[in-house]
């Protein structure tokens, strides 16, 4: 609440009055105290964080969709050579035909990217952050700092996942579900080597990001009712969307904590750095 109080008093200095409908200059009043970095990069404004999630999500969506285009080419024209693929993918598409290993890597990354990075982070990260405070009538999320961390953990997860695309043995290729033994045995396939380690590391970072975001979202259903005065039945007055958030908040908070359990290997091997490279 202290954060809300500071924002509140700050707002009073800026301008007085009721809800301004035509106060177009209002946004500019605050600019002079925000540097470029604090406004656009390490922003703690839920609206900016929503934009960051959205744009990162869109970039991921283009990558994930482009992968599907490449493997659909293989499925439709298994005997045709597309020299452009060799230009793009090098030895993964020798002679303009992607290799089976590249095909499996593409399918795996297509699933991982779209399920987790686009539809989970890009969708929920964008609209939960944007709409929860705006629709309950709050000035920001419960913890803007945690919200910022949530985005930057997602960003780190993205970097690690991108990096895994460029290692010599390629990214994970055992399917987006990463079933063992392909995911647990390093020698099972080339995608089970360092690519799989990076996949697990990235997903662990992603889980942290979603957990931080989820904790913020869950705060509001509890406290949303404060802004709603003069109500006989506040439940009735909440926007339906907020109920959807409540529903889906319960899910990540439980599910997300399970994820490290499912990915046991990933969490532990970071605690054992001396063995992290190759101990098989």
């Amino acid at each position, binding site marked *: 609440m202290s954060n809300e109080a500071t924002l509140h008093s700050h707002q009073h200095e800026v301008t007085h009055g009721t809800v301004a409908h035509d106060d177009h200059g209002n946004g500019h009043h605050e600019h002079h105290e925000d540097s470029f970095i604090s406004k656009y990069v390490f922003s703690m404004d839920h*609206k900016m964080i929503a934009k960051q999630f959205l744009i990162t999500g869109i970039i991921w969506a283009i990558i994930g969709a482009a992968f599907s285009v490449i493997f659909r080419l293989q499925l439709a024209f298994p005997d045709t050579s597309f020299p452009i693929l060799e230009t793009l993918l090098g030895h993964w598409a020798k002679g303009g035909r992607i290799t089976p290993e590249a095909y499996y890597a593409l399918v795996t990354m297509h699933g991982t990217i779209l399920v987790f990075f686009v539809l989970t982070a890009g969708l929920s990260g964008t609209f939960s952050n944007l709409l929860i405070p705006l629709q309950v009538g709050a000035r920001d999320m419960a913890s803007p700092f945690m919200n910022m961390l949530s985005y930057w953990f997602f960003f780190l997860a993205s970097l690690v996942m991108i990096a895994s695309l460029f290692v010599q043995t390629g990214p994970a290729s055992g399917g987006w579900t990463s079933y063992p033994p392909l995911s647990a045995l390093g020698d099972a396939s080339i995608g089970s080597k360092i690519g799989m380690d990076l996949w697990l590391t990235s997903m662990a970072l992603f889980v942290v990001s979603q957990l931080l975001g989820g904790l913020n979202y869950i705060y509001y259903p509890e406290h949303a009712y404060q802004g709603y005065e003069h109500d006989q039945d506040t439940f009735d007055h909440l926007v339906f969307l907020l109920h959807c958030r409540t529903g889906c908040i319960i899910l990540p908070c439980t599910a997300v904590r399970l994820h490290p359990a499912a990915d046991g290997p990933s969490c532990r091997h970071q605690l054992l750095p001396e063995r992290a490279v190759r101990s098989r």
Partner: protein
Amino acid sequence: MDRHAGTSFYLSELFVAGKALSNEGGSAILYQHLFWFLGHPEVYIIILPAMGMVSEVLAVSSRKPIFGYLAMVGSLFAIAILAFLVWAHHMFVTGLNPFLGAFFVLLTLLIAVPSAIKVFNWLTTIWKGNIRFTPASLFAIGFVSTFISGGLTGIWLGNSSIDIHLHDTYFVIAHFHIVMGVSAFFGMFAGIYHWFPKLYSRYMNSTLGFIHFWITLVGAYCIFWPMHYEGMAGMPRRYFDYSNWESFKQFVELNKFISIVVLIVFATQLLFVFNFFYSIFKGRKLTTTNPWDATTLEWTTPIHPGHGNWPGEIPEVHRWAYDYSKDGKDFIPQTVPVSPDESKH
């Protein structure tokens, strides 16, 4: 830990290339249980916010309250709870006890009930509404369409006996992509087109939005509908090349058709991306705080809301969010006090 610390949680006694591994006692199935206990709720994490946005957009664009609001909330929570009780329907062919499978079939099919309630309520929300066709509302309607066609095949797949045949075939790909891929994306597109003015204080180009919608809707069905037939014929997923199988030769031309549509739909998404980034900088400027005549609080903030959202006091809420077409008024914002002679909603 199995990878690097020599443990054996998910690896059992395995022979690889004739050589016995040192692992013993672990189970790959344990991983599948844990993964799907995460993974199934995960798909609802994706679809529930999309459902919320679609409900919101449908109410605003049909100028009507959400039909059956309480039923909507109830079915939402029913889905959220059931989401945790159905994970093993991904694992019917792992050697799961068929008796246990029967419970998972039952619980899985139960999800059809709240889902059907939601679909019914969306359709009755737009029924006889004064619909404003914007890219957002079209995508919201498209969501309902794809959610129905993707959801119905879920009833097939949820049966363990049918799943034995369809497991790991293109039927699963088709079901999953229509309901998770296309539906969830449609929800997201509806949200982006609808709240873009709030995000960037400009409009997106709606002509490009209409083109985007129609090509994506028709294209998505052209891509995923035929995959049901491939799956029913037993075509397995995750194969690199099907040309060696006599039984899948019949699908050579169909696969070409699908891939060509993929190229077209992909190009259309690039059009959306262009529209998005172009509109951030060059889109038509917002001149009103409430471009869609909506009742909710986000449209009471200034056109360029600063950090803190409202320049003065936080607005007070006096009514629910769905007073559309009430007492002869098109809409009544949540901030307007209830007058004594007002009819009940």
